[in-house]
């Protein structure tokens, strides 16, 4: 039997993650990691944010926003290492590092959001 190539799956995750990163990540990073901590904008109260993230729909959204872009990173960074540094002979190590990292991140986000309280 012919071996089923896994590449299309990774490419789909890459592409989906690319869309999610392009649309959602800039505003979230700007607000959460810059504007709120530096008080450029009056940040919402802890309770308000907590209530917002507690909603099942928010958690589902955050799960998608955390996990898919990680697979986007894994795919892109893998090829950057291959081509940029010309280290294709280390492919197995790089694959484990990149996709392993994405899988770990996905599991962590699922755990955090499932047990959010």
């Amino acid at each position, binding site marked *: 039997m012919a071996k089923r190539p896994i590449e299309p799956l990774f490419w789909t995750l890459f592409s989906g993650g690319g869309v999610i990163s392009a649309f959602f990540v800039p505003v979230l990073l700007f607000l959460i990691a*810059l504007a709120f901590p530096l008080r450029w904008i009056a940040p919402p109260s802890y309770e308000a944010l907590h209530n917002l993230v507690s909603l099942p729909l928010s958690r589902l959204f955050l799960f998608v926003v955390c996990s898919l872009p990680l697979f986007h990173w894994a795919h892109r960074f893998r090829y950057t290492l291959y081509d940029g540094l010309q280290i294709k002979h280390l492919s197995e190590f790089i694959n484990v590092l990149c996709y392993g990292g994405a899988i770990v991140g996905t599991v962590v986000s699922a755990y955090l959001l499932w047990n959010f309280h």
Partner: protein
Amino acid sequence: MNVPVSRSAPPHTPYHPRWYRTRVSTYWWMLQWSYFRFVLRELTSLGVAYSCVILLCWIRALSRGPEAYEVLEKRLASPVVILLTVISLLLVLFHTITWFRLSADAMVVRVGGKRVPGVLISASNYVAWLVVSGILAWLLLR
């Protein structure tokens, strides 16, 4: 290939074709602006990964309680983290721009048998991006 060798075959060396490949410098991508931009576009993935990690820390702190959240806010306001965040934000924005430009080439949308020009697809992506960003900001700041 298994070619039966007859005993009378004259002594010979098997033909080993070898590719002619010049060695490319490890720094090939620094030699030309377009190459550098390509690698920069690929490296935007690091900004994306950084954002995911920050988001996960944020969710964790929110889940742990107000004290943990305050600690996170302080860490996010430290100079090193601010620098990393600003670099990542620039990378992510570059990703958004290049992604929309790319999708204009990749997406073939036909209306009434005619292909919608790429500029329109990019433009509609930008509009959607602004709307989505506005909605997210409103939800967070409400």
